[in-house]
């Protein structure tokens, strides 16, 4: 099958509408980030180099810092758990919930939870689990997957959302005004927050010195989820540790600006224990689950720099391949440049199945330039391509560069491929022996290929910019 790899298939099949949503959303993010960062700092490069070295230092001494964080949290009445694998993490969380008799909870956006497919698991086990981030909630209603780290529904427009709300009974009629959509969600959630018995969150950072974990949101959903419930569980990747509270100044200043062009997200919450005795609201019990799930393998690999990642999404916004293909093309929790590195190695044993991702880059270097922790993503992609070669992974060896990039640079090849893509609709990709792809396809079918959409888009774009 002429070396066409799954990511190219997606890039090709994405609808015009979806692609416009992704391009508009990601380019707006890039511009805002650039403007804000450079307005506020004469030399933002210094700051991100500093952030990189703090992260590297922590990762080089991760055992010490992780133990210190555990101790700090335990001393403050937090129960600390460890989970080696995704299955361990799911079971640990389930048993905590059962221990507290929880049957209903809300969950704020957590990439770690996405990574282990926590939500469907809990629902299967009889725990009602509501995503409270507006974007994630819509994803949940649609049985979809987030396509961007920071803007999970970057690929959807208001009309689709309004239809979903009507279909799922969040609203009784169709209304696609964004303000109305938001108000309806507000009403829907308030009851749920008050009924819930627990909240699950991720964490953006955990300070080893005091155990203080940081949650950054704009909507206030994790804050609201936490205020009325007795149990808080935080699922945290072990790479989220930083040495001291004072280092937060570096990371928070970079995170908001890189993610959404804000100095700080609206709510930055610092938590290191159950509510204080005088406080009537808030959890009596706090659990932190530190999860490995492949991270220690990454730490031992020649791509360990990727563990510096603070999940800001800036590399996705700026990446030409991401913009054209959308996050779903990466077929795993993490899309874009970060995903092209992290997904194949994080899901280590699955490397062969995602080995096309590191090739889905023109190595233009934009991702490294915007990365707030200076991750040399293009270098890491090359190392992974090399790994694919050494391990003789067949699909990766078929074509020397990403067929997408290859095709995109040759108009005649592109046209041929486009004509052929109609035939691609009949590819039995659902039955392909690709585990992550099967998971991903569990709830959906591939969009039909409308060969030529991309060319049309390119042409429009050229016209628009010329």
């Amino acid at each position, binding site marked *: 099958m002429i070396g066409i790899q799954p990511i190219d298939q997606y890039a090709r099949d994405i609808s015009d509408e979806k692609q416009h*949503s992704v391009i508009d959303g990601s380019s*707006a993010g890039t511009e805002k980030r650039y403007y804000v960062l450079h307005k*506020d*700092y*004469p030399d933002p490069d210094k*700051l991100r180099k*500093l952030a990189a*070295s703090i992260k590297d*230092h922590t990762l*080089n001494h*991760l*055992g010490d810092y*992780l133990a210190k964080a555990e101790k700090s949290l335990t001393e403050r009445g937090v129960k600390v*758990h*460890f*989970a*080696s694998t995704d299955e361990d993490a799911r079971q640990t969380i389930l048993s905590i919930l059962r221990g507290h008799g929880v049957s209903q909870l809300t969950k704020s956006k957590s990439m770690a939870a996405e990574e282990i497919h926590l939500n469907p698991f809990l629902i299967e086990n009889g725990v009602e689990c509501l995503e*409270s981030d*507006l974007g994630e909630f819509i994803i949940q209603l649609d049985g979809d997957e987030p396509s961007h780290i920071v*803007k999970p*529904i970057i690929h959807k427009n*208001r009309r689709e*959302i309004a239809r979903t709300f009507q279909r799922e009974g969040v609203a009784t009629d169709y209304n696609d005004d*964004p303000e109305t959509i*938001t108000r309806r*969600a*507000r009403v829907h959630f308030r009851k749920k927050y008050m009924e819930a018995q627990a909240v699950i969150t991720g964490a953006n950072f955990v300070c080893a010195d*005091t155990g*203080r974990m940081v949650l950054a949101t*704009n*909507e206030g959903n994790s*804050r609201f989820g*936490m*205020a*009325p419930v007795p149990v808080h569980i935080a699922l945290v990747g*072990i790479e989220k540790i930083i040495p001291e*509270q004072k280092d937060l*100044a570096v990371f928070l200043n970079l995170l908001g600006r890189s993610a*959404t062009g*804000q*100095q*700080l*997200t*609206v*709510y*930055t*919450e*610092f*938590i290191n*224990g*159950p509510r*204080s005795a*005088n*406080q009537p*609201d*808030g959890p009596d019990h706090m659990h932190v689950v530190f999860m*490995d799930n492949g991270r*220690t*393998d990454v*730490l031992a690999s020649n791509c360990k720099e990727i563990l510096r990642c603070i999940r800001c999404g800036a590399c996705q916004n700026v990446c030409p391949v991401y913009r054209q293909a959308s996050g779903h093309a990466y077929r795993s929790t993490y899309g874009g440049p970060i995903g092209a590195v992290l997904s194949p190695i994080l899901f280590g044993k699955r490397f062969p199945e995602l080995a096309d991702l590191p090739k889905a880059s023109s190595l233009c270097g934009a991702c490294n330039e915007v990365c707030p922790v200076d991750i040399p993503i293009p270098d890491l992609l090359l190392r992974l391509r090399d790994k694919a070669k050494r391990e003789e992974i067949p699909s990766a060896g078929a074509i020397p560069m990403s067929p997408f990039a290859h095709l995109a640079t040759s108009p005649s090849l592109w046209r041929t491929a486009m004509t052929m893509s109609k035939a691609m609709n009949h590819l039995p990709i659902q039955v392909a022996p690709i585990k992550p792809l099967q998971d991903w396809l569990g709830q959906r079918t591939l969009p039909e290929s409308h060969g030529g959409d991309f060319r049309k888009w390119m042409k429009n774009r050229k016209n628009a910019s010329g």
Partner: protein
Amino acid sequence: MSRAAIFAKIESATSVLKTKVPYPDYDMSLVHSAPKLEGTDLWEIFSRNFSAVNGKPMNSVEQLIDFLKTNNQLRGYCDPALYDSIGGALAAAGLTVETEYDRERFEDYQFGITRATGAIAESGSVILDDYKTSHRLAALSPWVHVAVVERSEIHRTIPDAIAAFGDSPNIIWCTGPSKTADVEGILIEGVHGPGEQIALLR
């Protein structure tokens, strides 16, 4: 079991490193944003940055009463510790002010007035924490949240505010009203938390 396995794997990954990156010795002024810090009066700097994120800084109780009346937010909660200085004046002006927050009636409160632990001038954030907030929900569920800020508790920079964390188990910085841009990148305020965030100077 998982714990030991994880630590063992970390050990084997990091013990082979020939060099380890030392903890960088850095100067906090590197993270200060000069344009954000322009000015001398901390309340003024705060007000500018807080307004830029659609927060509403206010200097007087009269201003607050005016705002609540104009926006038809007539019933709410006030921390009993603030009743003499603020809540009483609101009641005298005809607003309904409760000093007990009843969770069962959480939808009844249109405004909530609680004490802030401080503010950050550089970022335009109000700081709340478990010790000084009488009810987390009262600061969160009403459409209007009024954080009462003492002038002496305004920190100049983000690092200053971090250095002042203390031992409260829950601290939260509110940098404007709750918002989302999930739907087509269009900014909408008041998603889950307050749609109006006010800082009242005392």
